Protein backbone atom coordinates (compact mmCIF):
# COMPACT_ATOMS: atom_id res chain seq x y z
CA UNK A 1 0.00 0.00 0.00
CA UNK A 2 2.86 2.38 0.88
CA UNK A 3 4.38 1.56 -2.50
CA UNK A 4 1.13 2.36 -4.32
CA UNK A 5 0.78 5.73 -2.60
CA UNK A 6 4.39 6.61 -3.44
CA UNK A 7 3.98 5.43 -7.04
CA UNK A 8 0.95 7.68 -7.59
CA UNK A 9 2.98 10.73 -6.49
CA UNK A 10 6.56 9.97 -7.50
CA UNK A 11 5.90 7.90 -10.65
CA UNK A 12 4.70 10.83 -12.78
CA UNK A 13 7.59 13.01 -11.53
CA UNK A 14 10.13 10.40 -12.63
CA UNK A 15 8.31 10.15 -15.96
CA UNK A 16 8.50 13.93 -16.34
CA UNK A 17 12.27 13.83 -15.85
CA UNK A 18 12.66 10.90 -18.31
CA UNK A 19 10.52 12.51 -20.98
CA UNK A 20 12.45 15.78 -20.67
CA UNK A 21 15.70 13.85 -21.11
CA UNK A 22 14.22 12.08 -24.16
CA UNK A 23 12.66 15.21 -25.63
CA UNK A 24 14.30 14.83 -29.04
CA UNK A 25 13.06 11.24 -29.43
CA UNK A 26 9.27 11.32 -29.92
CA UNK A 27 8.65 7.61 -29.36
CA UNK A 28 10.70 7.30 -26.18
CA UNK A 29 9.19 10.53 -24.84
CA UNK A 30 5.62 9.36 -25.41
CA UNK A 31 6.34 5.96 -23.86
CA UNK A 32 7.83 7.64 -20.77
CA UNK A 33 4.82 9.95 -20.35
CA UNK A 34 2.24 7.20 -20.92
CA UNK A 35 4.11 4.82 -18.60
CA UNK A 36 4.23 7.42 -15.83
CA UNK A 37 0.58 8.43 -16.16
CA UNK A 38 -0.60 4.86 -16.70
CA UNK A 39 1.26 3.40 -13.73
CA UNK A 40 -0.07 6.14 -11.45
CA UNK A 41 -3.63 5.52 -12.68
CA UNK A 42 -3.25 1.76 -12.21
CA UNK A 43 -1.82 2.25 -8.72
CA UNK A 44 -4.77 4.45 -7.77
CA UNK A 45 -7.29 1.81 -8.89
CA UNK A 46 -5.57 -0.88 -6.81
CA UNK A 47 -5.46 1.62 -3.95
CA UNK A 48 -9.25 2.06 -4.13
CA UNK A 49 -9.81 -1.70 -3.92
CA UNK A 50 -7.44 -1.96 -0.95
CA UNK A 51 -8.89 1.02 0.93
CA UNK A 52 -12.49 -0.13 0.36
CA UNK A 53 -11.52 -3.52 1.82
CA UNK A 54 -9.04 -2.64 4.61
CA UNK A 55 -9.88 0.97 5.49
CA UNK A 56 -7.70 4.10 5.67
CA UNK A 57 -3.96 3.69 5.13
CA UNK A 58 -1.43 6.29 6.24
CA UNK A 59 2.23 6.81 5.37
CA UNK A 60 4.43 8.94 7.62
CA UNK A 61 7.05 10.19 5.17
CA UNK A 62 10.53 9.70 6.62
CA UNK A 63 9.04 8.17 9.77
CA UNK A 64 8.42 11.55 11.46
CA UNK A 65 5.65 12.01 14.02
CA UNK A 66 2.45 13.58 12.57
CA UNK A 67 3.15 16.83 14.51
CA UNK A 68 6.46 17.33 12.68
CA UNK A 69 6.51 15.48 9.38
CA UNK A 70 4.43 14.97 6.27
CA UNK A 71 1.66 12.40 6.51
CA UNK A 72 -0.01 10.93 3.43
CA UNK A 73 -3.51 9.62 4.12
CA UNK A 74 -5.33 7.34 1.68
CA UNK A 75 -8.84 7.40 3.13
CA UNK A 76 -11.93 6.35 1.20
CA UNK A 77 -12.62 9.91 -0.06
CA UNK A 78 -9.13 10.31 -1.54
CA UNK A 79 -9.07 6.75 -2.89
CA UNK A 80 -12.45 7.27 -4.56
CA UNK A 81 -11.57 10.49 -6.41
CA UNK A 82 -7.95 9.72 -7.32
CA UNK A 83 -8.57 6.88 -9.84
CA UNK A 84 -11.15 9.00 -11.69
CA UNK A 85 -8.75 11.94 -11.94
CA UNK A 86 -5.68 9.97 -12.98
CA UNK A 87 -7.58 7.90 -15.57
CA UNK A 88 -8.86 11.11 -17.17
CA UNK A 89 -5.34 12.51 -17.52
CA UNK A 90 -4.17 9.22 -19.09
CA UNK A 91 -7.00 9.20 -21.64
CA UNK A 92 -6.47 12.87 -22.48
CA UNK A 93 -2.78 12.20 -23.15
CA UNK A 94 -3.77 9.47 -25.65
CA UNK A 95 -6.05 12.02 -27.32
CA UNK A 96 -3.18 14.51 -27.40
CA UNK A 97 -0.98 12.01 -29.23
CA UNK A 98 -3.69 11.66 -31.89
CA UNK A 99 -4.07 15.43 -32.15
CA UNK A 100 -0.40 16.02 -33.09
CA UNK A 101 0.31 17.65 -36.40
CA UNK A 102 -2.83 19.80 -36.28
CA UNK A 103 -2.76 23.53 -35.57
CA UNK A 104 -4.55 23.02 -32.26
CA UNK A 105 -2.05 20.61 -30.74
CA UNK A 106 0.03 21.53 -27.69
CA UNK A 107 3.80 21.40 -28.05
CA UNK A 108 4.48 17.75 -27.17
CA UNK A 109 8.00 18.41 -25.89
CA UNK A 110 6.57 20.59 -23.13
CA UNK A 111 3.04 19.38 -22.58
CA UNK A 112 3.98 15.75 -21.83
CA UNK A 113 6.41 16.42 -18.98
CA UNK A 114 4.26 19.24 -17.59
CA UNK A 115 1.18 17.05 -17.60
CA UNK A 116 3.19 14.54 -15.57
CA UNK A 117 4.15 17.20 -13.01
CA UNK A 118 0.50 18.29 -12.83
CA UNK A 119 -0.55 14.66 -12.26
CA UNK A 120 1.91 14.35 -9.42
CA UNK A 121 0.50 17.50 -7.87
CA UNK A 122 -3.06 16.19 -8.19
CA UNK A 123 -2.11 12.93 -6.48
CA UNK A 124 -0.34 14.82 -3.70
CA UNK A 125 -3.28 17.20 -3.20
CA UNK A 126 -5.69 14.29 -2.81
CA UNK A 127 -3.46 12.18 -0.57
CA UNK A 128 -1.82 14.74 1.70
CA UNK A 129 -2.68 14.87 5.37
CA UNK A 130 -1.41 18.35 6.18
CA UNK A 131 -2.25 21.85 5.13
CA UNK A 132 1.21 22.96 4.07
CA UNK A 133 1.79 19.99 1.79
CA UNK A 134 -1.60 20.82 0.29
CA UNK A 135 -0.17 24.26 -0.47
CA UNK A 136 2.88 22.69 -2.11
CA UNK A 137 0.63 20.37 -4.13
CA UNK A 138 -1.45 23.35 -5.27
CA UNK A 139 1.73 25.09 -6.36
CA UNK A 140 2.90 21.99 -8.28
CA UNK A 141 -0.43 21.96 -10.10
CA UNK A 142 -0.51 25.71 -10.67
CA UNK A 143 3.08 26.14 -11.83
CA UNK A 144 2.63 23.46 -14.47
CA UNK A 145 -0.77 24.93 -15.39
CA UNK A 146 0.74 28.42 -15.86
CA UNK A 147 3.24 27.05 -18.35
CA UNK A 148 0.72 24.74 -20.06
CA UNK A 149 -1.66 27.65 -20.51
CA UNK A 150 0.88 30.08 -21.97
CA UNK A 151 3.53 27.85 -23.56
CA UNK A 152 2.55 28.67 -27.14
CA UNK A 153 3.05 32.32 -26.29
CA UNK A 154 0.46 33.78 -28.65
CA UNK A 155 -1.33 36.99 -27.90
CA UNK A 156 -4.60 35.78 -26.44
CA UNK A 157 -2.79 33.21 -24.29
CA UNK A 158 -0.42 35.77 -22.81
CA UNK A 159 -3.09 38.35 -22.06
CA UNK A 160 -5.60 35.92 -20.55
CA UNK A 161 -2.78 33.95 -18.96
CA UNK A 162 -1.83 37.06 -17.00
CA UNK A 163 -5.26 37.27 -15.37
CA UNK A 164 -5.06 33.57 -14.54
CA UNK A 165 -1.54 33.76 -13.14
CA UNK A 166 -2.05 36.92 -11.06
CA UNK A 167 -5.38 35.70 -9.66
CA UNK A 168 -3.93 32.36 -8.65
CA UNK A 169 -0.76 33.92 -7.23
CA UNK A 170 -2.95 36.08 -5.01
CA UNK A 171 -4.94 33.02 -3.92
CA UNK A 172 -1.68 31.18 -3.13
CA UNK A 173 -0.47 34.13 -1.06
CA UNK A 174 -3.74 34.10 0.86
CA UNK A 175 -3.30 30.35 1.34
CA UNK A 176 0.13 30.93 2.95
CA UNK A 177 -1.33 33.61 5.22
CA UNK A 178 -4.03 31.10 6.14
CA UNK A 179 -1.36 28.52 7.04
CA UNK A 180 0.33 31.13 9.24
CA UNK A 181 -2.98 31.96 10.97
CA UNK A 182 -3.77 28.30 11.55
CA UNK A 183 -0.29 27.64 12.90
CA UNK A 184 -0.51 30.63 15.25
CA UNK A 185 -3.91 29.52 16.54
CA UNK A 186 -3.22 25.79 16.92
CA UNK A 187 0.53 25.10 16.65
CA UNK A 188 0.16 22.49 13.91
CA UNK A 189 -0.65 22.15 10.23
CA UNK A 190 -1.53 18.45 10.35
CA UNK A 191 -5.20 18.02 9.38
CA UNK A 192 -5.96 15.30 11.91
CA UNK A 193 -4.57 17.41 14.75
CA UNK A 194 -6.37 20.46 13.36
CA UNK A 195 -9.62 18.50 13.36
CA UNK A 196 -9.11 18.08 17.12
CA UNK A 197 -7.92 21.60 17.90
CA UNK A 198 -9.86 23.94 15.59
CA UNK A 199 -13.33 23.06 16.99
CA UNK A 200 -12.02 24.06 20.46
CA UNK A 201 -11.03 27.57 19.35
CA UNK A 202 -13.14 30.69 19.97
CA UNK A 203 -16.05 30.95 17.58
CA UNK A 204 -14.67 34.12 15.99
CA UNK A 205 -11.21 32.68 15.30
CA UNK A 206 -12.67 29.38 14.10
CA UNK A 207 -15.11 30.96 11.66
CA UNK A 208 -12.46 33.45 10.55
CA UNK A 209 -10.18 30.57 9.56
CA UNK A 210 -13.10 28.81 7.87
CA UNK A 211 -14.09 31.90 5.88
CA UNK A 212 -10.46 32.63 4.95
CA UNK A 213 -10.00 29.15 3.49
CA UNK A 214 -13.39 29.44 1.79
CA UNK A 215 -11.95 32.39 -0.16
CA UNK A 216 -8.67 30.55 -0.87
CA UNK A 217 -10.21 27.30 -2.07
CA UNK A 218 -13.17 29.16 -3.59
CA UNK A 219 -10.82 31.07 -5.90
CA UNK A 220 -9.24 27.80 -7.04
CA UNK A 221 -12.69 26.25 -7.46
CA UNK A 222 -14.11 29.32 -9.27
CA UNK A 223 -17.23 29.82 -7.14
CA UNK A 224 -19.28 33.03 -7.36
CA UNK A 225 -17.94 35.80 -7.24
CA UNK A 226 -14.36 34.53 -7.65
CA UNK A 227 -14.74 32.89 -11.06
CA UNK A 228 -13.87 35.68 -13.51
CA UNK A 229 -10.42 34.29 -14.36
CA UNK A 230 -11.78 30.96 -15.60
CA UNK A 231 -13.85 31.66 -18.75
CA UNK A 232 -11.18 33.99 -20.14
CA UNK A 233 -8.21 31.72 -19.73
CA UNK A 234 -9.48 28.15 -20.27
CA UNK A 235 -10.66 28.49 -23.91
CA UNK A 236 -7.33 29.94 -25.09
CA UNK A 237 -5.30 26.84 -24.22
CA UNK A 238 -5.02 23.81 -26.55
CA UNK A 239 -8.08 21.53 -26.20
CA UNK A 240 -6.30 18.70 -24.42
CA UNK A 241 -4.95 21.09 -21.80
CA UNK A 242 -8.37 22.68 -21.30
CA UNK A 243 -9.90 19.20 -20.91
CA UNK A 244 -7.50 18.41 -18.05
CA UNK A 245 -7.94 21.84 -16.43
CA UNK A 246 -11.75 21.75 -16.67
CA UNK A 247 -11.91 18.16 -15.50
CA UNK A 248 -9.52 18.49 -12.59
CA UNK A 249 -8.21 21.86 -11.45
CA UNK A 250 -11.36 23.44 -10.07
CA UNK A 251 -12.29 20.07 -8.59
CA UNK A 252 -9.10 20.06 -6.51
CA UNK A 253 -10.42 23.25 -4.90
CA UNK A 254 -13.80 21.65 -4.22
CA UNK A 255 -12.08 18.52 -2.90
CA UNK A 256 -10.01 20.60 -0.47
CA UNK A 257 -13.13 22.39 0.76
CA UNK A 258 -15.04 19.14 1.26
CA UNK A 259 -12.13 17.79 3.29
CA UNK A 260 -11.16 20.93 5.22
CA UNK A 261 -14.55 22.39 6.07
CA UNK A 262 -16.05 19.05 7.03
CA UNK A 263 -13.13 17.92 9.19
CA UNK A 264 -12.89 21.31 10.93
CA UNK A 265 -16.63 21.49 11.65
CA UNK A 266 -17.56 24.72 9.84
CA UNK A 267 -21.34 24.13 9.88
CA UNK A 268 -22.00 27.74 10.92
CA UNK A 269 -20.87 28.95 7.49
CA UNK A 270 -23.49 26.72 5.81
CA UNK A 271 -26.24 29.32 5.08
CA UNK A 272 -23.84 31.78 3.40
CA UNK A 273 -22.26 28.96 1.41
CA UNK A 274 -25.69 27.80 0.20
CA UNK A 275 -26.40 31.29 -1.12
CA UNK A 276 -23.02 31.34 -2.88
CA UNK A 277 -23.81 27.90 -4.35
CA UNK A 278 -27.15 29.08 -5.74
CA UNK A 279 -25.56 32.17 -7.30
CA UNK A 280 -22.68 30.12 -8.77
CA UNK A 281 -25.11 27.71 -10.45
CA UNK A 282 -27.33 30.38 -11.96
CA UNK A 283 -24.70 32.97 -12.91
CA UNK A 284 -22.49 30.29 -14.51
CA UNK A 285 -25.25 28.93 -16.71
CA UNK A 286 -26.47 32.42 -17.69
CA UNK A 287 -22.92 33.23 -18.75
CA UNK A 288 -22.87 30.07 -20.87
CA UNK A 289 -26.09 31.03 -22.66
CA UNK A 290 -24.53 34.33 -23.82
CA UNK A 291 -21.58 32.65 -25.54
CA UNK A 292 -21.13 31.61 -29.16
CA UNK A 293 -18.06 29.39 -28.99
CA UNK A 294 -18.14 25.73 -27.91
CA UNK A 295 -15.10 26.03 -25.64
CA UNK A 296 -16.34 29.23 -24.00
CA UNK A 297 -19.82 27.75 -23.42
CA UNK A 298 -18.29 24.69 -21.79
CA UNK A 299 -15.99 26.87 -19.63
CA UNK A 300 -19.00 28.69 -18.17
CA UNK A 301 -20.66 25.34 -17.48
CA UNK A 302 -17.63 24.39 -15.39
CA UNK A 303 -18.57 27.27 -13.05
CA UNK A 304 -22.26 26.39 -13.02
CA UNK A 305 -21.57 22.76 -12.18
CA UNK A 306 -19.16 23.72 -9.40
CA UNK A 307 -22.25 25.24 -7.75
CA UNK A 308 -23.88 21.82 -7.40
CA UNK A 309 -20.86 20.34 -5.62
CA UNK A 310 -20.60 23.42 -3.44
CA UNK A 311 -24.29 23.07 -2.60
CA UNK A 312 -23.84 19.45 -1.51
CA UNK A 313 -20.91 20.52 0.68
CA UNK A 314 -22.76 23.54 2.16
CA UNK A 315 -25.53 21.34 3.55
CA UNK A 316 -23.04 19.78 6.00
CA UNK A 317 -24.99 16.54 6.20
CA UNK A 318 -23.88 13.01 5.34
CA UNK A 319 -26.32 12.88 2.41
CA UNK A 320 -25.22 16.28 1.11
CA UNK A 321 -21.50 15.48 1.32
CA UNK A 322 -22.09 12.09 -0.29
CA UNK A 323 -23.98 13.83 -3.08
CA UNK A 324 -21.09 16.27 -3.57
CA UNK A 325 -18.60 13.38 -3.75
CA UNK A 326 -20.75 11.48 -6.26
CA UNK A 327 -21.13 14.70 -8.27
CA UNK A 328 -17.33 15.05 -8.34
CA UNK A 329 -17.00 11.49 -9.66
CA UNK A 330 -19.64 12.14 -12.32
CA UNK A 331 -18.51 15.61 -13.29
CA UNK A 332 -14.78 15.12 -13.83
CA UNK A 333 -15.06 12.63 -16.74
CA UNK A 334 -18.15 14.28 -18.28
CA UNK A 335 -16.53 17.70 -18.42
CA UNK A 336 -13.26 16.34 -19.80
CA UNK A 337 -15.13 14.38 -22.51
CA UNK A 338 -17.11 17.45 -23.56
CA UNK A 339 -13.89 19.39 -24.07
CA UNK A 340 -12.39 16.45 -26.00
CA UNK A 341 -15.47 16.50 -28.25
CA UNK A 342 -14.90 20.25 -28.55
CA UNK A 343 -11.44 19.31 -29.86
CA UNK A 344 -13.01 16.90 -32.36
CA UNK A 345 -15.40 19.63 -33.54
CA UNK A 346 -12.44 21.95 -33.95
CA UNK A 347 -10.66 19.30 -35.98
CA UNK A 348 -13.62 18.59 -38.28
CA UNK A 349 -15.03 22.10 -38.60
CA UNK A 350 -11.82 24.10 -38.51
CA UNK A 351 -13.03 26.16 -35.54
CA UNK A 352 -14.97 25.80 -32.31
CA UNK A 353 -17.12 28.82 -33.09
CA UNK A 354 -20.85 28.09 -33.37
CA UNK A 355 -21.29 30.46 -36.32
CA UNK A 356 -18.75 28.74 -38.50
CA UNK A 357 -19.85 25.11 -37.97
CA UNK A 358 -22.93 23.13 -38.95
CA UNK A 359 -24.25 19.81 -40.19
CA UNK A 360 -21.63 17.72 -38.43
CA UNK A 361 -24.16 15.02 -37.40
CA UNK A 362 -24.59 13.93 -41.03
CA UNK A 363 -20.86 13.82 -41.76
CA UNK A 364 -19.57 12.41 -38.46
CA UNK A 365 -22.41 10.57 -36.67
CA UNK A 366 -19.97 9.07 -34.17
CA UNK A 367 -18.90 12.53 -32.96
CA UNK A 368 -22.57 13.48 -32.60
CA UNK A 369 -23.23 10.46 -30.38
CA UNK A 370 -20.11 11.14 -28.35
CA UNK A 371 -21.32 14.70 -27.76
CA UNK A 372 -24.93 13.77 -27.02
CA UNK A 373 -24.21 11.31 -24.20
CA UNK A 374 -22.06 13.58 -21.96
CA UNK A 375 -24.18 16.63 -22.88
CA UNK A 376 -27.38 14.96 -21.68
CA UNK A 377 -25.48 13.75 -18.66
CA UNK A 378 -24.32 17.30 -17.88
CA UNK A 379 -27.91 18.52 -18.06
CA UNK A 380 -28.98 15.74 -15.68
CA UNK A 381 -31.22 13.69 -17.97
CA UNK A 382 -31.85 10.07 -16.89
CA UNK A 383 -30.42 7.45 -17.27
CA UNK A 384 -27.01 9.15 -17.44
CA UNK A 385 -24.65 9.77 -14.53
CA UNK A 386 -25.61 13.44 -14.17
CA UNK A 387 -29.14 12.50 -13.22
CA UNK A 388 -28.02 10.25 -10.38
CA UNK A 389 -25.54 12.84 -9.08
CA UNK A 390 -28.01 15.73 -9.26
CA UNK A 391 -30.72 13.61 -7.64
CA UNK A 392 -28.39 12.83 -4.74
CA UNK A 393 -27.47 16.50 -4.18
CA UNK A 394 -30.98 17.90 -4.68
CA UNK A 395 -32.71 15.33 -2.51
CA UNK A 396 -30.19 16.03 0.26
CA UNK A 397 -31.09 19.73 -0.04
CA UNK A 398 -34.82 18.95 0.03
CA UNK A 399 -34.30 17.00 3.27
CA UNK A 400 -32.73 20.13 4.77
CA UNK A 401 -35.55 22.36 3.51
CA UNK A 402 -33.33 24.54 1.34
CA UNK A 403 -36.09 25.70 -1.02
CA UNK A 404 -34.18 28.57 -2.69
CA UNK A 405 -31.15 26.49 -3.54
CA UNK A 406 -33.28 23.62 -4.86
CA UNK A 407 -35.12 26.01 -7.18
CA UNK A 408 -31.78 27.47 -8.32
CA UNK A 409 -30.47 23.96 -9.01
CA UNK A 410 -33.50 23.00 -11.08
CA UNK A 411 -33.49 26.28 -13.04
CA UNK A 412 -29.75 25.87 -13.73
CA UNK A 413 -30.43 22.30 -14.88
CA UNK A 414 -33.07 23.44 -17.35
CA UNK A 415 -30.86 26.21 -18.72
CA UNK A 416 -27.95 23.76 -19.06
CA UNK A 417 -30.13 21.61 -21.29
CA UNK A 418 -31.00 24.66 -23.37
CA UNK A 419 -27.36 25.57 -23.74
CA UNK A 420 -26.46 22.03 -24.82
CA UNK A 421 -29.34 22.11 -27.32
CA UNK A 422 -27.87 25.33 -28.70
CA UNK A 423 -24.52 23.62 -29.39
CA UNK A 424 -26.37 20.69 -30.95
CA UNK A 425 -28.45 22.92 -33.22
CA UNK A 426 -25.57 25.05 -34.40
CA UNK A 427 -22.84 22.44 -34.75
CA UNK A 428 -24.52 19.14 -35.50
CA UNK A 429 -27.55 20.41 -37.41
CA UNK A 430 -27.90 23.50 -39.54
CA UNK A 431 -25.61 24.59 -42.37
CA UNK A 432 -21.91 25.07 -42.41
CA UNK A 433 -20.54 28.53 -43.17
CA UNK A 434 -18.14 28.81 -46.08
CA UNK A 435 -14.56 29.89 -45.71
CA UNK A 436 -11.02 28.56 -45.55
CA UNK A 437 -10.32 25.97 -42.88
CA UNK A 438 -7.08 24.54 -41.43
CA UNK A 439 -6.45 20.96 -42.52
CA UNK A 440 -7.77 18.31 -40.10
CA UNK A 441 -5.65 15.65 -38.38
CA UNK A 442 -4.35 12.79 -40.56
CA UNK A 443 -6.44 9.61 -40.65
CA UNK A 444 -4.43 7.72 -38.06
CA UNK A 445 -4.43 10.62 -35.63
CA UNK A 446 -8.17 11.01 -36.10
CA UNK A 447 -8.70 7.38 -35.22
CA UNK A 448 -6.65 7.77 -32.03
CA UNK A 449 -8.64 10.87 -31.05
CA UNK A 450 -11.96 9.10 -31.66
CA UNK A 451 -10.82 6.04 -29.71
CA UNK A 452 -9.69 8.12 -26.73
CA UNK A 453 -12.96 10.08 -26.68
CA UNK A 454 -15.01 6.88 -27.02
CA UNK A 455 -13.06 5.39 -24.11
CA UNK A 456 -13.85 8.44 -21.99
CA UNK A 457 -17.55 8.33 -22.98
CA UNK A 458 -17.61 4.67 -21.97
CA UNK A 459 -16.13 5.78 -18.64
CA UNK A 460 -18.99 8.23 -18.04
CA UNK A 461 -21.47 5.43 -18.82
CA UNK A 462 -19.70 3.21 -16.29
CA UNK A 463 -20.28 5.89 -13.64
CA UNK A 464 -24.02 5.72 -14.46
CA UNK A 465 -23.99 1.91 -14.49
CA UNK A 466 -22.29 1.58 -11.10
CA UNK A 467 -24.01 4.62 -9.59
CA UNK A 468 -25.50 2.54 -6.76
CA UNK A 469 -22.12 1.17 -5.67
CA UNK A 470 -20.50 4.57 -6.05
CA UNK A 471 -23.22 6.24 -3.97
CA UNK A 472 -22.71 3.64 -1.22
CA UNK A 473 -18.95 4.28 -1.26
CA UNK A 474 -19.54 8.05 -1.31
CA UNK A 475 -21.86 7.75 1.68
CA UNK A 476 -19.20 5.80 3.58
CA UNK A 477 -16.60 8.43 2.68
CA UNK A 478 -19.00 11.22 3.71
CA UNK A 479 -19.72 9.55 7.05
CA UNK A 480 -16.04 9.41 7.93
CA UNK A 481 -15.63 13.06 6.89
CA UNK A 482 -18.59 14.16 8.99
CA UNK A 483 -17.24 12.20 12.00
CA UNK A 484 -13.52 12.98 11.98
CA UNK A 485 -12.81 10.57 14.88
CA UNK A 486 -11.94 7.74 12.48
CA UNK A 487 -9.67 10.01 10.41
CA UNK A 488 -7.89 11.22 13.54
CA UNK A 489 -7.51 7.66 14.81
CA UNK A 490 -5.99 6.54 11.49
CA UNK A 491 -3.37 9.30 11.50
CA UNK A 492 -2.51 9.00 15.23
CA UNK A 493 -2.62 5.30 16.07
Amino acid sequence: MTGLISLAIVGPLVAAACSLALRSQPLGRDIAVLAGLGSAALASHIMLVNVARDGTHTVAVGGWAPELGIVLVADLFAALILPVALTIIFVVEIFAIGQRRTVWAANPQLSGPLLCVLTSGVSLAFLTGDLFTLFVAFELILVSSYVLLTHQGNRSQVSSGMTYVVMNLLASTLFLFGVAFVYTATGTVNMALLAERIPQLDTGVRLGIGAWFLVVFGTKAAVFPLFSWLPDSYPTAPTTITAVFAGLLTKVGIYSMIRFHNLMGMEDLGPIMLLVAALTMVVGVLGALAQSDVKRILSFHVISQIGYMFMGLSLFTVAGTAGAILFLIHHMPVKAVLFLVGGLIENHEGSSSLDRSGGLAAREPLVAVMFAIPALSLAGIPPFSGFVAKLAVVSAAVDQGGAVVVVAALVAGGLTLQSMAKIWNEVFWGRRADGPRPSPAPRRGRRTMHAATALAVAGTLMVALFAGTLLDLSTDAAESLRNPASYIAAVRP
Partner: protein
Amino acid sequence: MSTALLLAIGGLTAVGLYLLTGRSLSRIVLGYSLLGHATVVALITAGGPAGWPPIAGQAAPEDMSNPLPQALTLTAIVISFGLTLFLLALARRQRTLSGDDLVEDDLEDRRIAAVESGPTEPEDPAAT
Protein backbone atom coordinates in the same frame (compact mmCIF):
# COMPACT_ATOMS: atom_id res chain seq x y z
CA MET B 1 4.20 38.54 19.42
CA SER B 2 6.17 41.61 18.43
CA THR B 3 4.25 44.71 17.32
CA ALA B 4 7.05 45.70 14.97
CA LEU B 5 6.75 42.43 13.07
CA LEU B 6 2.97 42.76 12.87
CA LEU B 7 3.34 46.29 11.49
CA ALA B 8 5.89 45.00 8.97
CA ILE B 9 3.46 42.30 7.81
CA GLY B 10 0.63 44.82 7.51
CA GLY B 11 2.75 47.37 5.66
CA LEU B 12 4.19 44.85 3.22
CA THR B 13 0.73 43.42 2.53
CA ALA B 14 -0.81 46.84 1.97
CA VAL B 15 1.89 48.00 -0.43
CA GLY B 16 1.95 44.60 -2.15
CA LEU B 17 -1.81 44.57 -2.71
CA TYR B 18 -1.72 48.16 -3.98
CA LEU B 19 0.97 47.30 -6.53
CA LEU B 20 -0.85 44.11 -7.51
CA THR B 21 -3.88 46.12 -8.60
CA GLY B 22 -1.72 48.08 -11.06
CA ARG B 23 -2.01 47.62 -14.78
CA SER B 24 1.66 47.22 -15.57
CA LEU B 25 3.06 43.75 -15.11
CA SER B 26 6.37 45.02 -13.70
CA ARG B 27 4.40 46.61 -10.84
CA ILE B 28 2.55 43.34 -10.34
CA VAL B 29 5.88 41.50 -10.08
CA LEU B 30 7.04 43.93 -7.39
CA GLY B 31 3.71 43.64 -5.60
CA TYR B 32 3.88 39.86 -5.65
CA SER B 33 7.44 39.92 -4.24
CA LEU B 34 6.34 42.18 -1.37
CA LEU B 35 3.35 39.94 -0.65
CA GLY B 36 5.72 36.98 -0.66
CA HIS B 37 7.88 38.71 1.97
CA ALA B 38 4.77 39.45 4.03
CA THR B 39 3.78 35.77 4.08
CA VAL B 40 7.33 34.78 5.03
CA VAL B 41 7.33 37.18 7.98
CA ALA B 42 3.84 35.97 8.95
CA LEU B 43 4.96 32.33 8.93
CA ILE B 44 8.04 33.14 11.01
CA THR B 45 5.93 35.13 13.48
CA ALA B 46 3.56 32.15 13.73
CA GLY B 47 6.45 30.11 15.16
CA GLY B 48 6.61 32.16 18.35
CA PRO B 49 9.48 34.20 19.83
CA ALA B 50 13.01 33.96 18.47
CA GLY B 51 15.57 31.85 20.35
CA TRP B 52 18.80 29.94 19.89
CA PRO B 53 19.42 28.01 16.65
CA PRO B 54 17.54 24.69 16.80
CA ILE B 55 20.60 22.40 16.77
CA ALA B 56 20.55 19.44 19.15
CA GLY B 57 23.00 19.78 22.06
CA GLN B 58 23.74 23.50 21.63
CA ALA B 59 20.92 24.91 23.74
CA ALA B 60 18.08 23.72 25.93
CA PRO B 61 15.03 22.82 23.78
CA GLU B 62 12.85 25.48 25.46
CA ASP B 63 15.36 28.23 24.49
CA MET B 64 15.43 27.27 20.81
CA SER B 65 13.51 28.87 17.94
CA ASN B 66 10.70 26.78 16.50
CA PRO B 67 12.27 25.08 13.44
CA LEU B 68 9.03 23.96 11.76
CA PRO B 69 7.84 27.38 10.48
CA GLN B 70 11.38 28.01 9.25
CA ALA B 71 11.18 24.86 7.13
CA LEU B 72 7.80 25.97 5.80
CA THR B 73 9.22 29.42 5.09
CA LEU B 74 12.13 28.04 3.07
CA THR B 75 9.72 26.09 0.88
CA ALA B 76 7.55 29.16 0.40
CA ILE B 77 10.56 31.32 -0.53
CA VAL B 78 11.71 28.86 -3.18
CA ILE B 79 8.24 28.68 -4.71
CA SER B 80 7.73 32.44 -4.76
CA PHE B 81 11.21 32.93 -6.27
CA GLY B 82 10.37 30.61 -9.16
CA LEU B 83 7.01 32.25 -9.74
CA THR B 84 8.54 35.74 -9.77
CA LEU B 85 10.84 34.58 -12.57
CA PHE B 86 7.87 33.17 -14.47
CA LEU B 87 5.99 36.47 -14.11
CA LEU B 88 9.02 38.33 -15.45
CA ALA B 89 9.17 35.98 -18.43
CA LEU B 90 5.47 36.59 -19.06
CA ALA B 91 6.00 40.37 -18.85
CA ARG B 92 8.83 40.11 -21.37
CA ARG B 93 6.68 38.08 -23.74
CA GLN B 94 3.86 40.60 -23.45
CA ARG B 95 6.36 43.37 -24.23
CA THR B 96 7.55 41.55 -27.34
CA LEU B 97 3.98 41.04 -28.52
CA SER B 98 2.48 44.45 -27.83
CA GLY B 99 5.32 46.85 -27.02
CA ASP B 100 4.25 47.38 -23.39
CA ASP B 101 3.65 45.15 -20.39
CA LEU B 102 0.13 46.31 -19.54
CA VAL B 103 -2.63 43.88 -18.65
CA GLU B 104 -5.16 44.04 -21.47
CA ASP B 105 -8.88 44.66 -21.17
CA ASP B 106 -11.09 41.73 -20.37
CA LEU B 107 -12.03 40.06 -23.68
CA GLU B 108 -15.63 39.62 -22.59
CA ASP B 109 -16.03 43.26 -21.56
CA ARG B 110 -14.69 44.36 -24.90
CA ARG B 111 -17.12 42.11 -26.75
CA ILE B 112 -20.13 43.33 -24.77
CA ALA B 113 -19.04 46.95 -25.27
CA ALA B 114 -18.86 46.28 -29.00
CA VAL B 115 -22.37 44.79 -28.98
CA GLU B 116 -23.85 47.65 -26.97
CA SER B 117 -22.33 50.39 -29.09
CA GLY B 118 -24.27 48.99 -32.03
CA PRO B 119 -23.42 47.58 -35.43
CA THR B 120 -21.81 50.82 -36.67
CA GLU B 121 -18.67 49.97 -34.71
CA PRO B 122 -17.53 46.59 -36.03
CA GLU B 123 -15.87 44.16 -33.69
CA ASP B 124 -12.22 43.87 -34.60
CA PRO B 125 -10.13 41.89 -32.13
CA ALA B 126 -6.91 42.60 -34.06
CA ALA B 127 -7.23 46.38 -33.67
CA THR B 128 -7.70 46.47 -29.89
